[in-house]
């Protein structure tokens, strides 16, 4: 599957506001200087040649030199952290695994599978009109979700490379003691920073906000969802 097809599919799913436009021709090579640079510095000054079948660099020299291949074409990561929910949004321990696939110089497809493990505290009841009301705490319930996102890498600042991420997900949630379950379709927006600690390994920390709707059992019907998560972990370049 080509990178363009993935980008297009994500754009159709509403999560690719930052997908790259059609590739533009690379800027013309700089005219040779009258006073040629020393041989060891010449390759750094020149824009990298685009690989076959990939989009050309949006702006030559945007990415800093040390990160030329720092993230890699594909990568996986595992992260752990905390998710805060409330009412009918699960929260608790968050474990996530991600697969990154480079789409362009700045953008990566970010496929995430995340698991949330919260307490099993019961917090739903029937009011006097027999309507079910749930008021779970920030760390109650459980959930599993797959998310398709676009991760945009920004220019590194020293050892730190910030990034932003937007995407959409589909998940299943469960509040066991209340016998409430259902599915959720949240939008995600967040950002973080990665720090390369080895040629193929980086430490990643990120935070994200999830906003959407859930369809729940026990007559709860459609309910708004709002969650916050902060995670950190390790990212491994595959190629």
């Amino acid at each position, binding site marked *: 599957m080509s990178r363009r097809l993935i980008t297009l599919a994500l754009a159709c799913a509403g999560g690719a506001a930052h997908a790259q436009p059609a590739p533009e021709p690379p800027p013309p090579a700089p005219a040779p200087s009258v006073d040629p640079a020393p041989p060891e510095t010449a390759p750094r000054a020149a824009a990298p040649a685009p690989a076959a079948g990939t989009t050309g660099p949006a702006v030559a020299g945007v990415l800093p030199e040390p990160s030329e291949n720092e993230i890699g074409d594909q990568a996986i990561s595992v992260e752990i952290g905390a998710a805060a929910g409330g*009412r009918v949004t699960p929260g608790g321990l968050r474990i996530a695994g991600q697969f990154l696939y480079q789409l362009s110089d700045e953008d990566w497809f970010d496929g995430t599978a995340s698991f949330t493990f919260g307490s099993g505290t019961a917090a739903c009841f029937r009011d006097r009109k027999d309507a079910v009301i749930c008021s779970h705490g920030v760390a109650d319930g459980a959930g599993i979700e797959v998310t398709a996102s676009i991760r945009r890498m920004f220019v590194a600042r020293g050892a730190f490379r910030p990034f932003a991420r937007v995407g959409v997900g589909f998940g299943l949630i469960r509040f066991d003691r209340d016998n409430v379950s259902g599915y959720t379709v949240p939008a995600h927006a967040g950002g973080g920073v990665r720090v390369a600690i080895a040629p193929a390994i980086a430490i990643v920390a990120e935070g994200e906000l999830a906003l959407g709707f859930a369809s729940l059992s026990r007559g709860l019907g459609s309910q708004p969802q709002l969650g916050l998560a902060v995670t950190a972990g390790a990212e491994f370049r595959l190629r």
Partner: protein
Amino acid sequence: MRSAILAIVGALVACQHSDVSREIGARCDSASECDERCLGPGNTYPGGFCSIACGGRDECPGATTCADRDGGVCLFTCQVETDCTFLGTGWHCTSADLRGGGIKVMVCRGA
């Protein structure tokens, strides 16, 4: 997109509110629907009533008092009949013995 976000945020802000809770006042058929105990549905507690056991007034949350019924349970206090209408039909403002107090108090309960 913006309207969808506003709708979600609006729904969250207009958070569900209730005068009752799993602790006191929720409808119930069994104790699993309550924090502590369920006074089962019937003429005395129409629709069922979640409550907590008590030995005195101080052990009950605000707006409730300890009635000397069913071994001592917290019930909503009232002054007039309309104070109990939020509990639904069949609920009335009647007198009951105060647990551990030796006096009468007005509480919401069924017939």
